[in-house]
Each structure stands twice: as C-alpha cells, then as structure tokens.
C-alpha cells in the first residue's frame, strides 16, 4: 500500500518525533509512505492573512505535485497543514475559474483528485481494522484526548467528527487498550502561534487545558497536532508557573500511543525528544505476554495447508 505523505515544516523540525512515529507505525502495518517530492510550505497562518492567491497556490502546488506522482491519498499529520490543504481543495472545487487561475500560477495541472487525510482519518482508513489484533502492550492509561481547534473546524468543509466533543481519537485510544476520559477542554484553544509573541497567553490557555486534564486524573494527554504538542509540552515551565503547580504528565502524539501499543520501543517513536520527560508508570497488567495466541493461529494454518 502506497500513501502520499506531506510532512510540512514541523515534521522536519520541532516535531521530528511525530514523523518518526508515523513512519514507524506505518511500517508495522506495511504501508509505504511516499513523501511528496519537492514539497513546499502550506502557507500556514501567514499566507492567508497576507495574500489570497498565495494562500491558495501553496497548498494547490503540493496537491498538484501529488497528482503528478499518481498519489490518490495524502496523509497530512500536522493539523494546520491538513486544515489549509482541505480548505484550498474545497475552495478550488467550488470555483472552477479560480482553480484555473491557481493552476496557471503554479504552472502545474491541478485536478483536485487527491484525498487529504488527517492522521486520524489515515489511521481509520488503513490501520484501524487491523489495529486490535496487533496490540501487544495495551496502552492502559487514563488518557485525555486533545483535538485542538484546527482538526475539526470548520465542520462544513472538513466534515470530520463532531465539532463539539469529538470522539474519533477516543475510539482509537480505547482500541489500543487505553481509558479515554471524558473531559471538558477537548477543542479549546491552546494559544497556537502566540507561543513566541505572547507566551503569557499561551501559559494561561494551555494551563487551563492541562489543569482540567490533571483534575480528571489523566495520566497522559494525547494530541494530533505539532502546535498543540509544543505548547502543552515545551511551554510546561510557563504553564506550571501560571498554575502554580507542578504538572508532569507527558504529551504524546496519537501515533506514539498506537506505536507503544503495537510494541514499538520508545526510541523508535522518538519519546526521548519530548521536553516533558515521558515517564509512564509500568502497570502489572501490561507485562502479560499476549504473543502466544497469534502464534498458535499460524501453526494451525500451516497444518491445514
């Protein structure tokens, strides 16, 4: 199985472990991720605040390049990139003349045939069916799934999950053996790009998120966006200062959680790269070996053959 892969800037920088874990997870499930050759920036927040055509052309070029390679599905792990690509695809679909104009700007043929998948949609389409059979170390922790703002909004375009109280990541965590808790800050703003210019704002917003998760006894927060991750993880000192508390629960990507559940080691998943140390308590239940049963199945199949 070949699936297009658009890393965007963060996968190559601050969120290297996200890419590492996605790649490792894909490998376990025999999925080949093909990085789109000569990809460019998605435009992020800056482009659509400055120049409409630029903000359309950048993502359109990425999708056009994928089309040229014959790629039908692109997995976009970064929620912001996913949002930009999906919205541009939607806008160009609605306005054919605009689509022509953009194609002339990027000087590439653009048909809009590629499917844009966020990390959860990617997992649901290619992995979920086979996930439970591959789980060897159930991720038995109280997990707060944090979706952030960009993954589910605007619903009219993305049509992904429920805008308020989304559930898709919770379902995945449960399948990985985890206990996805019910909490109130699933889609609240983490402060996003204010991380650099207004760290105090980020400390307050992200602080409220972490506070609610910890108050509800979460042992880990799971995210699907590098921006959320960096705010909840890297800004932990500021968060703790704002809350006047010492919160030390780790922030994991959903790909890392599933990776751990299917038996990948911490290093492969890049857990060592987090700012807040990942010190998940070992639980007795997790030590139970689950590998014996699948072996039996293999044996009987051989006998029958």
């Amino acid at each position, binding site marked *: 199985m070949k699936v297009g892969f658009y890393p965007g800037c963060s996968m190559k920088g601050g969120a290297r472990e996200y890419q590492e874990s996605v790649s490792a997870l894909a490998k376990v499930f025999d999925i080949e991720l093909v990085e789109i050759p000569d990809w460019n920036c998605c435009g992020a927040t800056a482009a659509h605040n400055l120049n409409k055509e630029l903000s359309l052309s950048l993502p359109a070029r990425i999708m056009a390049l994928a089309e040229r390679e014959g790629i039908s599905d692109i997995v976009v792990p970064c929620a912001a990139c996913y949002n930009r690509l999906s919205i541009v695809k939607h806008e160009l679909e609605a306005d054919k003349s605009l689509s022509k104009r953009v194609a002339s700007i990027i000087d590439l043929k653009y048909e809009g045939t590629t499917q844009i998948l966020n990390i959860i949609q990617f997992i649901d389409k290619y992995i979920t069916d086979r996930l439970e059979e591959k789980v060897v170390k159930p991720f038995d922790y109280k997990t707060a799934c944090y979706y952030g703002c960009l993954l589910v909004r605007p*619903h*009219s375009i993305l049509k992904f999950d*429920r*805008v*308020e*109280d989304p559930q898709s990541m919770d379902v995945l965590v449960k399948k990985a053996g985890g206990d996805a808790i*019910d*909490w*109130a800050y699933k889609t609240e703003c983490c402060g996003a790009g204010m991380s650099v210019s207004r760290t105090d704002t980020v400390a307050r917003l992200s602080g409220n998120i972490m506070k*609610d998760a910890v*108050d509800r006894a979460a042992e880990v927060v799971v995210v699907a966006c590098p921006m959320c991750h960096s705010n909840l993880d890297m800004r932990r000192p500021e968060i703790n200062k704002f809350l006047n508390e010492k919160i030390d629960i780790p922030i994991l990507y959903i790909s890392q959680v599933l990776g751990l559940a299917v038996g990948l080691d911490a290093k492969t998943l890049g857990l060592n790269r987090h700012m807040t140390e990942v010190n998940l308590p070992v639980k007795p239940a997790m030590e139970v070996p689950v590998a014996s049963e699948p072996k039996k199945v293999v044996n009987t199949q051989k006998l029958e053959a």
Partner: protein
Amino acid sequence: MSRIGVFVCHCGENISATVNCEKVAKITGELKGVEFSTDYKYMCSDPGQTLLKEAIKEHKLDGVVVAACSPRMHEPTFRKACAEAGLNPFLCEMSNIREHCSWVHPKDDLTTEKAGDLVRVMVEKVKKNKALNSIKVPVTKTALVIGGGIAGIQAALDIANCGHKVIMVEKQPSIGGHMSQLSETFPTLDCSQCILTPRMVEVAQHPNITLHTYSEVEVVDGFIGNFKVKIRKKSKSLDEHLCTGCGLCTTKCPQKKIPNEFERGLGFRPAIYVPFPQAVPNKPVIDRENCTYYIKGKCKVCEIVCPTKAIRFDQEDEILDVEVGAIVLATGFDVLKPDFFPEYGYGKYKDVIDGLQFERLASASGPTQGEIRRPSDGKEPKKIVFVACAGSRDPAKGIEYCSKICCMYTAKHAMLYKHKVHDGTPYVFYMDIRAGGKMYEEFVRRTIVEDGTHYVRGRVSTIYEKNGKLIVRGADTLMGGIPIEIEADMVVLATAGVANKGAEELAQTAHVSYDAYKFFAEAHPKLKPVETNTAGIFLAGACQAPKDIPESVAAASGAAVKVAALFSNDELTRDPLVALVNRQPAPVFSSCVGCFLCQSVCPYQAIEREEIKNRNGEVIKTLARVNEGLCQGCGTCVALCRTKAIDIHGYSNQQVYTEIMALLNE
C-alpha cells in the same frame, strides 16, 4: 371562428410596474379569434368582474382569458364570474403574468413580450377548451381527527358540537398530548391539567365522538368528501368493556423499572400501565416489549389479580376500515434528541434536562410532587441555568427557524423556579426575547423584575461537569462579549421544537405536502393557514410549526369550521377535469385496444373494464372506462396510453400541443 375576450389586469401596480399592460391588451387583441381585449386596474374587483361579465354578453364571447395573477389564486373567481354571465366556466383560462412574469422580471420590453406570449398561449388553448359540467359527489359527514393533543381535542369537540360525527385516533394510550405534561401555562400560570382534563373527559363522553387510543392511521385513500381510511388499533392486551379501570393490575405488576415516557424518563412505570392518573380512557395497556410474560412466557400476575378478568394476552391488533369526508391532522410536535447537543452534555449529565422534563419536575403530579429537585441526587438546585434557543435559530446545525414557544416557557420556568426555590438564583442565556402576544412581554418583565431572574444575552458554548457542578461557559454580549462561567446545579435546555416522529410517513400516507423540516405545509401561508394542498385535509396545532396553546386552539377551531363548512352540503361539486376514453362509431367503438396499461398506473383505481356486446350478448370488445367519481385528473394514464385513446379534460393532447405551438411560434 372563435370570439375570445382578453382581459389584462394591472393588479394595482403589481403587474403594470414592469409589464406594459395596455400594450399586452393591444397586441393580443390583434390575434386571430380574439373579439375583444382590454386592460383594467383590478380585474378581481367588483367593477373588474362586472366589466368581464358585460363584455361576455355584449360581444357574445365564447372564451375568456384573464391575464392576471396565478390561477391558483383567482381561477375560481373568474370562472364564477363567467358562469354568472352565462358562459361555461371551463371556457375561462388565466394567464399568470404576475407570479410568473411581472414579479420575477425587470421592467423592460422582454417582460412585456413574455406577458404577451403567455396570453397568446392561453388564447390558443381556450379555443380548444370544451364546455364542461361540474361533477357532483356525495359527502360522508364524518370527520377523522388524527392526534389527541389539545389541538385535536379542540377540533374534535368543535366539529362534534356542530352535530357531525368525529373519529379521533391517538397513538398513545391516552389523549392529552404534550399539554397534559405541562405544569402551569404562560402567561396566566393556569394549571395545565386543570384546564385540559375537563376537555379530555368531554371528548370521551361526547355522543358524536368515537375515540380510538393506542391506534394509528395506516392507509388514506379516496378524496375530499369520500376518504377511505384504515386504522390500526394496536392491541392493549385488554378487554376494554370488562375493564373498570380499578388499577389493581398496575400496582401488582412486578416489572416496575421501565422509564416513564410521560415523565420524560424522570420516573418509572410498570409494564401494564396508565400513562398518568387523569388519562382518558383511564384503562391500562400492556407494553409488550417490557412485559415479563411476553419476554419470558410466564408471569400473568395482572391476569390473576384482575377482578373482572379483563386481561387478554392473545389479543391481536385490529384493523378498522372507516369512511370519512374530511381529515384534520393534529399530530403535534416533538423536541430534539439528546445527541443533538454533545457540547451541552445533554444525555450525558443527569442534571442537564430539557424543558419538558422541567415541566414534569414543576408539576404537582410529577415525580417530585412539584418540588424542584435535580435528577442526579434529588437535591434542590440553588443555581439554575436556562439555555434558550437550544438548537433553534442555528443554521449550522440545520434548525434555522425560531421555535417560538421557548422564550415564553423559559420565562415561565424561571418564574416557577423562583416561586418554589426562594433563595435560588436563575440565569437565562438568550439570543433575543421574542415575547409577541397578549400579556406575553409583561410576563417576561415580571420574571426579570419581580422574580430577579438574571437574563444574560449570549450563547452557551459548552457545559461540563466539574466537582459535582455543571460549568456553563458562555458569553455576555451586552458586556462586550466577555466570556462568563456559571457554576450551576442544574441546567434546563429550551430544546427546539421539531416535527413529530413519523410526520413524514403520515404526510406521505395522507398525500399532504410538508416542508424541509417535515412540518406539514399549509395551502397558503397567510390566507389558507389550516388547509393543506390536498382538498379535505386540514391542519391544527403544532404539526404545522411550533405553536403555543392559544395558537393551537385557534388553529384547531379554524380547521373545525372548514370541516363544518364542507359538511354543510350533501353533495360536493368537483371540477370535471377528469380523464375519458374516446368513443367511436361501431365497429371500432374506441381506439382503446384494451391493454389496460392505464389501469395498472392509476393511483385511484378509477379505470374500469367495459364490455361491448353484440345483439347476441357476446362480448366483442373490452374497453377501458373512467369512473368520473374516482378520477382525480392526474393524467398519468394519458401519458401512457399507446393508442392515445384516453385523454383528459383541461389538459388534453390537443390543448397541450396547441399551447406548445403557440408559445414557440410567434
């Protein structure tokens, strides 16, 4: 050679503002066969009609075209005027140059030209029209009222008091509807039960009303004056004649933990139950899905304890065939389901309830005997938040309309709460307060000023539970949109009123139109508010749109008057625009070859077989024949006929082809 008169109406300025009416009259006056043409400010006015009548007489017209508004509006008016002047009414046609021309196009030559085209089409059509006589059909003077809420009750009583028979069908085991669930009613704080139950009893005892509870309408056939209806009387597992309503069975039933629908899940009921103490009829039914006997095959406690031996476990559903002349739909409304508001935790948190549940809490006959206690732990909530517009006026979620009743009942809830919990603090989040109605605005003011309810103008974004409190997060837009959080003990959502379950199916069964929200559609939003597009079927109450009690009652009385008017004649005259099979001289008899394709497509079973016999009584040809009483004039048979032997008055092949040719060839 025809002598046709053309009358072009200005409709004040509605037509003449964009169409040059004099020009239209002038050019159409020059058409072949047009004897007389004129334009006039208001053709539908008395002088306008007089003008028409006099022209018919003076110019000996044998056809009339009135170019004005939609024929759906005034065709009967002008046909009647023609008849009064001695011209067969079916020789009068209308050109719709208002709705289909002047109102939808700008003022220019093209618009006038189009108006001229539309008139020319009708002139040519009228030339092919035939003088027809109205068909008379008998009227069955019995009405069917579907739904036994306040609207259905009012309609049934009004019709019955006019001396006509009424059959009432109610889905639930008791009549009463939503009104019987309410505690007190705005703006007078009358006790709902107190004003409703006498009406319910009156229905049960009225000699002209036959009541079928626990029943549903399955098939509606026929037409105005002559509907044939199948009613499924669901088995109550009970002989109603023997049952005295003593209620012993309901107290002895071992199955006691079934969520009570009437209490909106806030209480429990047994498997054999009467929905509420004042139910009409006050006789129980067995809920077979939850009855131990039907699940496990043994129990029968009710049968053992019943003093009159009225329990019938093997009773089957009964199908009743009834004939009625008119139908009133009064099936009411429903409120949104919990999964509509994931962000409000409705369905997830026990103390987030909807308005109807609050009614039950506030009701003296409710699960808490009228004390306001929250469902989770039975404590009295000291801080309560009411969320108005929960679902309503929200295009993103698909309910764009205003549910209309919520502003008022939310104010009433806040007031009732304050009357019962004196030290409590009620908050109301609202978008706008829509309190149009007699004494309504004053009522809301009282809630705010006298009872000290905090009205916060803004929407609630999310509700979540923390440390046993419900955190209601919203914005106060009158304070510059600042975010606010209220730690509430209980939250009441004024959930949007939506079409009742099964409304769409019922509309399709009864062949009435419904809107995008599945509410039944009225024939005209202003002038025919209780009629449907299907003659003989009327609307009452909230099945049409969310309505409060006074409005529902008014609509019901309106529908009842329509029914009574229909029943005031022994016969009904119907437009003779029906199909007919051509007849020719022997030995052909008709171009009908007797394939009866028409019979298979006719929705009204109006096609009969007619046998042509020779002198010896032998059948020599079988033809199709149309029963004029049954034919509704849809024309599907005409389109299907291979030999064009069947045709339809008013839309005959000749007329239609003429129209097309006139339209396209100037």
